[in-house]
């Protein structure tokens, strides 16, 4: 009951955010966006034809009415059809989102697990050689552009100039084997890029937790390093870790990795978004923006509930 009340309150509190996001994207993309009148007309249109098309497109309606239509589309979850392919936006999303998730998930999980492991290691040997080596590598990893990593990994793993082990690009997945062969190189690239940032973040979180009084207490009662780190310190560090992981979720589900999908030609929602950007496909863009905002509100709610599960001091009031 408490949980339900909390959830309802939280979701209502998220309304201004969704309104803000939709309003700004509407203003930028639609209201002040490109005028499509002449795309739909033949050569030398008459004034009546122009007026007719503008009427069709709703350009002559007042601002609030047009924004209201966007909100109605959002609430009824009916964004119409893609302007470039004619595919309904909902079916486009249903088709592309699973691909994005399948593509991004392994790299996301590995990147975070390895990041926590390396962060713990570096924090445990703080100031020592292992710490310096790990953090030095992280600094180098963070300085290499994602773009360069993607291209370099493609050359190294998938081209005849390198190991030539995996398909160069595309996504023709019919079996687990196909999946592994297509997902490996993008995953390696994702992990490579994320690892520097993650390790640095997790190390600083863990070092901060290591300096707490209760860690000294635990040591004064003879707790060995393994349970000290994996149980006592890690559980205290979970709040920032949860925050970081949860807030990456909307990005994975909705935007996907736009760059990755675009470069490897993978038909996920990121590539769909990119295509929509390039062609100015407004229904798709509106749907992507609005869904991201809604998902963020939901993620915020789930994050708060998770905090409660991890830290008894957090109350859902």
């Amino acid at each position, binding site marked *: 009951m408490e949980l339900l009340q909390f959830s309802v309150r939280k979701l209502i509190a998220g309304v201004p955010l969704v309104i803000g996001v939709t309003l700004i994207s509407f203003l930028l993309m639609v209201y002040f966006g490109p005028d499509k009148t002449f795309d739909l007309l033949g050569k030398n249109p008459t004034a009546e034809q122009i007026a007719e098309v503008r009427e069709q497109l709703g350009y002559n309606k007042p601002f609030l009415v047009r924004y209201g239509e966007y909100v109605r589309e959002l609430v009824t979850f009916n964004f119409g059809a893609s302007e470039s392919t004619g595919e309904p936006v909902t079916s486009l999303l249903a088709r592309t989102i699973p691909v994005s998730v399948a593509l991004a998930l392994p790299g996301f999980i590995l990147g975070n697990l390895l990041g926590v492991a390396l962060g713990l290691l570096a924090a445990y040997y703080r100031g020592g050689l292992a710490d310096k080596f790990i953090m030095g590598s992280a600094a180098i990893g963070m300085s290499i552009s994602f773009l360069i990593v993607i291209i370099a990994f493609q050359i190294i793993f998938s081209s005849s100039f390198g190991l030539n082990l995996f398909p160069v690009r595309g996504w023709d997945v019919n079996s687990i084997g196909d999946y592994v062969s297509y997902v490996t190189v993008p995953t390696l690239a994702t992990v490579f890029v994320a690892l520097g940032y993650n390790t640095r973040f997790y190390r600083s979180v863990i070092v901060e937790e290591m300096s707490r009084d209760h860690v000294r207490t635990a040591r004064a009662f003879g707790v060995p390093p393994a349970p000290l780190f994996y149980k006592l310190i890690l559980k205290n560090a979970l709040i920032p870790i949860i925050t970081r992981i949860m807030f990456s979720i909307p990005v994975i589900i909705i935007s996907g990795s736009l760059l990755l999908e675009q470069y490897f030609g993978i038909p996920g929602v990121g590539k769909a978004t*990119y295509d929509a950007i390039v062609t100015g496909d407004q229904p798709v863009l509106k749907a992507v923006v609005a869904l991201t905002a809604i998902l963020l509100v939901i993620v915020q709610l789930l994050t708060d509930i998770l905090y409660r599960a991890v830290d008894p001091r957090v109350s859902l009031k």
Partner: protein
Amino acid sequence: MNAQPPASDTIAAPPERRESLWTKAAYKFRRDRVGVWSLAVVLVYMAIALGVVFGWWATSWAELEGGKWEPPSAEHWFGTNIIGQDIFDRAIYSTRTSFEVGLVVAILATALGAVLGALAGFFSGSWTDEIILWFMGVLDSIPFILFVAAIAYSLGDTPYAMHVAMISTFWITAGRLVRGEVIKLRGQEYVEAAHAIGVPELTIIFRHVLPNTSHILLVQATITFVAAIKSEVILSFLGIGVKDGMSWGLMIAESTQEVLAGFFNNFLAASVLLFGLVMAFNLFSDALQDALDPRTVAES
């Protein structure tokens, strides 16, 4: 740990803390070998960029000077690209693009963050604060690349859509940091004293409080600089970044066809120069942050 400003004579009192913070930071920074070397590398890049601005070198980056894919030679140090342009010239010219984007975005985004963050922090709990926070949340929630595209749509074909988009999103981190710091500073005696003798609120905020967040702003500006040049490369690669001119991102975009044919010069030139600048700036930023960290300053 936060040194209390002396609760004494003048209301603009904090200089004692600021001065000691900066002189101690300078002292610590000079002793940080990695920091000094990375700053030197950044300055070399900057000199290269300035040379391009003044037209000392890389003036013929757009000209067709040789054949397709010439190997490196005395004339073309990094060889030529698919249509015979000099890769070295193009890579050098792109340094200027990077610096221009990095500096413009870092300075304006940090300044915007400072102003809005200070207002939100000083009036925290009020409507001003609520609206600024809401705005931060909203801008944070729009996927970055979409936001760039949206700005590009609404601004038409200006070359600055990318800059505007970056500034409109990158100010948020600085804003949040400054807001937090100002909330802390607001409770200190010198601010209360200024209030008590009737100094106007805006004067208090911008003359007395904001300068005390300058160490945060400086570090944040360096972080924003790096974020901006990294984003520029990716946006240019995707075709929604630099429109006219040359940039490492455009070079990499060009090179994607070349690398599959086994010609790596274009890709390597852009990647290595980009990596060097980002790495040096990252290390410089870290050293700066260490030097300015009041916790370590207070101990030494």
